[in-house]
């Protein structure tokens, strides 16, 4: 079946009169009380393949290797050994560097692998768009209780994005210009409205930080003692600390930049650490949450009262 066939098949099936829903019973009850009528369990899939050295990657450019790197932070060799870029008849990095082992890591770099995020976003957004199209086909106004998963399929470079949720109609309202989506459903969605907010969309972002270790990072991570005595065994592994912060900050700021005046609610981080090779790591961080818009100035609830429960 082609993509359009799938959509029309799904639209026909969803128009058959019975409703389907992925909600739990309490969520279902809360939904009905809020005037949201579930119409269909809608889904979107997308399978993506990508590579670290794919198009868009700065690694394919020789200028990256000669020191012209677009990176989040760079680290220089504390021993004062510079980077060797020119090729001489005696080979790379030989002349003028007497005393330095050829594998000494004279530079270090934390690189934001944007092209990985871009590929990830293509997959996420395609799955989201396909789910929304199904909801539109079912005549829905919004999709609640969205569950999204992204998992490795077949091997490390192929990833499946799968998103599903319950499409709902707001009773007595015409369809909105755009379908709204939310990770929240049921009671929590009701409380969000109580707090003066309404969901606009599910949002997610990925940061993939490549750590090209400098010599000091490598010495520390291997528990080594610096033969030159420059790198102290108790000093911070600055490059890794920075990467831990950068992965989260980049993911957050990526989402923040698209929020406009809205807020990100109920965010959750998921992190992953991968060792590509010796002294070469990837710290990745996915951030998901619901973009919410303030729709009213909700009065604050009364302060909580401590309660002792007798059973």
């Amino acid at each position, binding site marked *: 079946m082609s993509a359009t066939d799938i959509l029309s098949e799904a639209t026909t099936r969803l128009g058959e009169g019975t409703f389907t829903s992925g909600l739990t019973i309490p969520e279902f009850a809360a939904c009905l009380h809020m005037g949201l009528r579930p119409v269909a369990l809608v889904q979107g899939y997308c399978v993506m393949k990508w590579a670290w050295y794919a198009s868009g990657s700065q690694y394919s450019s020789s200028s990256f290797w000669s020191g012209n790197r677009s990176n989040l932070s760079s680290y220089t060799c504390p021993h004062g050994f510079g980077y060797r870029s020119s090729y001489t008849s005696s080979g790379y990095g030989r002349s003028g560097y007497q005393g330095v082992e050829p594998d000494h890591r004279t530079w270090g770099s934390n690189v934001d692998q944007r092209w990985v995020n871009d590929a990830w976003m293509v997959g996420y957004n395609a799955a989201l768009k396909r789910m929304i199209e199904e909801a539109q086909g079912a005549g829905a106004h919004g999709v609640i209780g969205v569950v999204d998963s992204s998992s490795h399929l077949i091997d490390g470079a192929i990833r499946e994005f799968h998103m599903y949720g319950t499409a709902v109609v707001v009773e007595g309202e015409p369809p909105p210009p755009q379908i709204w989506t939310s990770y929240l459903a049921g009671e929590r969605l009701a409380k969000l409205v109580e707090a003066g907010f309404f969901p606009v969309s599910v949002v997610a972002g990925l940061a993939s930080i490549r750590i090209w270790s400098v010599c000091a990072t490598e010495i520390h991570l291997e528990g080594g003692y610096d033969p030159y005595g420059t790198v102290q065994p108790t000093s911070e592994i600055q490059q890794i*600390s920075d990467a831990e*912060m950068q992965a989260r900050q980049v993911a957050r700021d990526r989402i923040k930049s698209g929020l406009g005046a809205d807020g990100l609610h109920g*965010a959750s981080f998921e992190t992953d650490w991968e060792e590509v090779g010796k002294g070469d790591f990837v710290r990745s961080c996915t951030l998901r949450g619901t973009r*919410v818009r303030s*729709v009213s100035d909700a009065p604050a609830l009364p302060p909580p009262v401590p309660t002792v429960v007798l059973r």
Partner: protein
Amino acid sequence: MKTPDEWTARRQEIRDAVRDIYGSPDRKSAHKGRPVTSDLSIDEALVLHSIGWEPVELVCGAGVYPIPTGAWQWAYGEIRYASVAMRSAFDRAAERIGTECAGADAAGVVGVRVDVTIERHAVYVVLVGTAVAPSTGRVGLGRPFVSDLSGQDFALLHNAGWEPCGLAHGAAFVYAPRRSAADAISQTRQNVELTNFTEAIYAARESAMARAQSSALGLGANGIVAVQVSEGPMDFAHHAIGFVVYGTAVKPGPAGHQYRAPQVSVSLDDRVRQFDVTSLRGTSTG
């Protein structure tokens, strides 16, 4: 229970809300012109709102320190390299999350998730939480606090007149020394206490708790609440006993302790599990 009229009003509210999300893009949910990011649950956001606070920004802090080869080798006494790396990593992570919080113009960080990883050659401490501020702004508030208390706990503490000061922490790693050959042989067929392990864990605990207390004093606090404890041998070095504690350091606010008489209620629910034995280890609080 809501009356049918209230439910009708609620449904109208939902309809208005749906219309408003596309109809009035001028409304701002931003904090001083910046979009709000938060990992608080909706319950936490509501309870913070009830005491006049609001989420501002999702913030993080990390500290990674090395442990050189040889530090875990079999010997006697404290494994200083590991204890120092742990303390430095914690301090650095707390300092950085505090800096991010101040940069977001917030008063402190609540609901901080403390992620501690101890490897043979490195200690990682990563703190992630939501920076919060009073809705009226943070004027007159001091240094940002960092707290692993949930929004609910923070509200309760606040209403009782107490203030969080920061994360107090202490860690110690101690060798459980090898038994003498004579002891090992004579104990082969005995059911006995291995005093080397008992003593090691007591030594680690005393040092770690003393450090946590002095860290609280350094934050200007006079106590630590919701202390989380993790202890036991290292996965990669079974003769090395680690004891790591952390919790939110607190002090009474300017008005002192405010007594809040709890209301007594009788639950008609079925009996539920009353004590979760894993809670002390920080894996679950129910």
